[in-house]
């Protein structure tokens, strides 16, 4: 996801990168090899999990189906591990460059992640050396804040523990 200089400067300005590029982060040791067991999100069933090492950067893509709703309700939780907090912030900036809408703004009102962007239907955040996206992936669109909060709590336990 290498950005050219023009792209990068546009994104830095748009998202005020300097304000969060080096902001406080959770954890000291980077988390590596994170996996979901499938019971982390109450009310959601893990229907697909695939690690994608050929993509740059590598990522874990997981998809969760609502247990009490139709198959049309599907959430995607994507987790990217970076070698450091600084690298995670860079990746977060690059991910923000993948949104065609210019209206994805930073959220300082949500206690999710170290830095979080998005809105009720999509959140992308950095937590320690991890970058996480929680997004709708099915026809029936639902709010994602509760799920994002739960995912964040799960990863915080690993980030603060520095478990590999």
């Amino acid at each position, binding site marked *: 996801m290498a950005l050219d200089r023009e792209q990068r400067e546009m994104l830095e300005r748009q998202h005020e990168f300097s304000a969060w590029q080096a902001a406080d982060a959770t954890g000291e040791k980077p988390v590596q090899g994170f996996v979901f067991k499938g019971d982390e999100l109450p009310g959601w069933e893990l229907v697909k999990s695939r690690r994608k090492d050929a*993509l740059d950067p590598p990522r874990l893509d997981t998809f969760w189906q609502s247990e009490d709703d139709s198959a049309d309700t599907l959430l995607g939780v994507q987790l990217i591990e970076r070698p450091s907090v600084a690298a995670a912030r860079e990746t977060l900036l690059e991910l923000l460059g993948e949104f065609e809408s210019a209206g994805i703004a930073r959220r300082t009102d949500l206690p999710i992640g170290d830095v979080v962007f998005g809105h009720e239907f999509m959140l992308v955040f950095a937590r320690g050396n991890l970058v996480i996206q929680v*997004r709708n992936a099915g026809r029936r669109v639902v709010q994602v804040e509760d799920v994002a909060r739960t995912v964040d709590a799960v990863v915080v336990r690993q980030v603060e523990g520095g478990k590999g």
Partner: protein
Amino acid sequence: MIQLEAIKFNHDANDASHDAINLRRNASQWVNVPEWQRAICVNPEDSPAAYAVAHTAGNAVTIQASFSCTDPECTSAEIRALDNVVYPGIVFVKQPTGCLAWLVKVLIPLIRALVGNVLGDVGATTVSFAGGQSGFVSFTLVNTRLNGASVGARTTEWRWQYRRTPADPWTDIAITRHRIYTILDLPTAPWQQTPYQQSNTQLPWTDVLDYACQWSMGATTVEGAGGGVTRGVNDLGPAVVTYDCPGGGGSRYSAGGFDCTDFIERLKGGVGNGYFVNCSDCATFVSTFANALGCDLWQSRMGSAFFHLNPILAIGSSVWQPACHGTPGWSDGFGYHEVAWTGACDSDENVYDACLKVDGDADPTSAPHTPLLPVNLRFGNPGDGQYRDRLTVPADRANCSPRPTTKTRRTVS
């Protein structure tokens, strides 16, 4: 008893002028050569091969086949294979004469022209046996229709026959079925022909050709093939994919490379990476699938600053409006947009945009609207009525400028 053991279509990995191109099935599966093996290959898709029409034009195309013979006295035989659609089980013990000969002479070319396979017949060749094995023997294809063939994925069905002497009748050995792809030219980047090894995931995928050939069936030009793929992708909405309004138009299949494996899973009815796509995804689908057919398209962005949109039909939507009007996180415009683009990806080049339909009438800024899928449409400059004017409101057309430094061809995985 003579048996057909195996057939190689891609018998020369370094050249595609007289044989099939180098292929794989997908990111994890390889196409074994010989592509057809006795007892293993039953259905056409078990035995795939692809021919780059521009490269085989005017050349004799050959295959290689190997045989075994259980009769120790069998030292040689003449072997051929007929198009089983043209000759469905017809074995003439003697050459037909009289009216029957005339009828055959008239009917066979007609049948071949209407329903004959693109590879034609396998010309009769004398095959020698040593110790009951022939090894691989080269056969020249005759009556082929590869010259000027259009894009397609077709079944070739051959009736293999042998005779020990010219006086003997032809005896059937086997019927083989093959999935034959005809593409306009060698696939272009990100697809590769070398290195030809299992670790190279950028060899063209038959999983991609299955869809690309279907979408562009019958195309004889790169413009036609690119247009077919663009329409095919756009037609996926709203049943298979739709524009990512709830997610802010985020890339689901194209961030950090083309996640082609999951796109194909989605095409086949699976989860893939979900229902939503954005412009970068669509640009990547179009250029990658079209380039597998021999087109030469980039994925490239436009937009030096935010630009408001004219009413459009985003993929999967039947409502004319600036993309995602009224949805949280949207303000009736794009921060950038990405399309499949020719050449230098600038104002003078043409775009193929499967992500949306613009208004194709004289006034794209207001109703009534005439849906126009941008296919081989010049990007243009403000005021000239081309793609840029149809996409963007007049005041923001300068912002919607080409950004050719972003042009890329995402690696497939």
